[in-house]
């Protein structure tokens, strides 16, 4: 039993966004009715970059709005896709004529709503989509099935596309770059404790002492397997091994590693995970050129973490390193 700090459940997302503006009013604006977030100072003459999805994953996506990253973020209710009407309004607000790239995490609801929005604007706006489906745990053979979930690789996609758009890349190029980052990325997640439903205070699943849930997503759903907990070193190996194979990282390759906290994971724990990630990759001769460590794509208060690897090119490093100024990412 836990408690979610809020007023009425109905106003949760909107009030939380008021708080975002309270803290980062210099960077972002919140539009209501319908709800979406844009940069405080709109950019013109560039490809517009937009993302969104269910809330509960903060700082994703609203925390990534600002110079060098997104032009707009469209938040749904907790774990629920935003509506097509929200997405349409956001595209209209940020597309200055150069077209828009939407970064969509692969979930049926998001895909439906973002696609409907794009179709609604087909006559007037050029809207392209990058579909992020990095979650290795949901690799499936099911033709026509939902496919892999989109999880923490979306941060790399947003950062890289953001830098490219800022540098003047046209819609098609930004889209291709984003899709390339997706193709070079894979993520695996593990949970030690499920997240709490804000309404009921119940955990989304229960684990016995000594158990962990392997291959979870970011909506509190169970993973692919319940396993006995292991030490950090072994656990990171069991995550990084399949990732390296999936992205095809070879001796001498450079990767970006995103060591992501799922909500209630402490900085000390993420520090240990980052250390172990480097150790395992060193052992494989894969060079960790960049590391991002922190709670960037959360699943409410889930206790757990994900590791994402993206095989880098010189260009991707350049885009990753390019300046960014958003509520959650600044350099």
């Amino acid at each position, binding site marked *: 039993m836990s408690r979610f700090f809020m007023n009425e459940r109905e106003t949760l997302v909107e009030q939380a966004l008021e708080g975002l503006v309270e803290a980062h009013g210099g960077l972002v604006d919140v539009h209501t009715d319908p709800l979406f977030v844009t940069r405080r100072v709109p950019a013109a003459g560039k490809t517009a970059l937009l993302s969104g999805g269910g809330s509960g994953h903060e700082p994703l996506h609203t925390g990534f709005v600002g110079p060098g990253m997104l032009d707009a973020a469209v938040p749904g209710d907790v774990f629920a896709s935003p509506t097509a009407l929200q997405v349409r309004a956001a595209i209209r607000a940020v597309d200055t004529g150069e077209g828009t790239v939407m970064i969509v995490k692969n979930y049926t609801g998001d895909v439906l709503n973002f696609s409907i929005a794009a179709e609604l604007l087909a006559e007037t706006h050029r809207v392209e989509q990058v579909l992020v489906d990095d979650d290795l745990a949901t690799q499936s053979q*099911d033709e026509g099935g939902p496919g892999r979930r989109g999880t923490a690789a979306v941060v790399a996609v947003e950062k890289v596309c953001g830098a490219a758009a800022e540098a003047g890349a046209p819609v098609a190029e930004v889209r291709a770059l984003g899709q390339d980052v997706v193709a070079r990325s894979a993520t695996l997640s593990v949970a030690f404790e499920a997240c709490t439903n804000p309404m009921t205070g119940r955990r989304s699943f229960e684990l016995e002492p000594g158990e962990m849930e392997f291959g979870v997503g970011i909506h509190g759903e169970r993973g692919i397997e319940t396993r006995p907990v292991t030490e950090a070193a072994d656990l990171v190996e069991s995550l990084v091994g399949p990732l390296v194979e999936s992205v095809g990282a070879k001796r001498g390759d450079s990767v970006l590693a995103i060591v992501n906290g799922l909500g209630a994971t402490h900085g000390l724990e993420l520090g240990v995970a980052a250390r172990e990630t480097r150790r395992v990759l060193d052992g494989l001769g894969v060079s960790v050129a960049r590391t991002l460590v922190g709670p960037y794509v959360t699943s409410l208060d889930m206790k757990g973490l994900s590791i994402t690897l993206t095989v880098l090119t010189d260009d991707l490093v350049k885009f990753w390193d390019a300046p960014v100024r958003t509520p959650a990412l600044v350099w």
Partner: protein
Amino acid sequence: MSASNGTELTGARARAWLLAFADRVVADADELTELDRQAGDGDFGWNISSALKRARTGLEESGAQDPAEVFQAVSDAFLASGGTSGPLFGLWFGRLGAGPSAPWSVADLGRAFETATGAVRRLGKAEVGHKTMVDAMAPAAEALTSAETHSWREAVRGAARAARAGADSTSGMIAHRGRASYLGERVQEVLDPGAVSVAWFFEAAEGA
């Protein structure tokens, strides 16, 4: 609120039907949430009841003249509520809302639900057996289409029975669409909450 034992779905009866459905969902949302907690992300009860609360307010205030108007109002409420079920129900009710602007015969009902369910199948790429709302929608539409009766009450009784059987059949299925598909056999025995809500929808018609 039960209307006369006529052969038609009038606007008033459609309104009563939808309000009864909304009341049922709002009252028992936790049951749907619990199913979605087990096999999905635990928000379905919230998603659908938010949409239906919005729809209820609209319906209580409106004097909708025919079923199409009623369904259209419900569609709008779902389209304003996101999630996966939001656009799918929005589309379903939206197609119903494009039906004849007059009271509906049982034959009209059958045609409307066939069309609407076909649209959901296409958008969701979901077929019967995939463990989704379609598993309840499709047999209900079929029951209405092939109903050998002109009585509204008998027709919806058949649809409700078919929808319920379809929803029940989702326990035992391995999901091929929606979040439950990530969990495969682990949630094989869990009922699909979308399908259950569709069964409730047709059951609500029985009293209307």
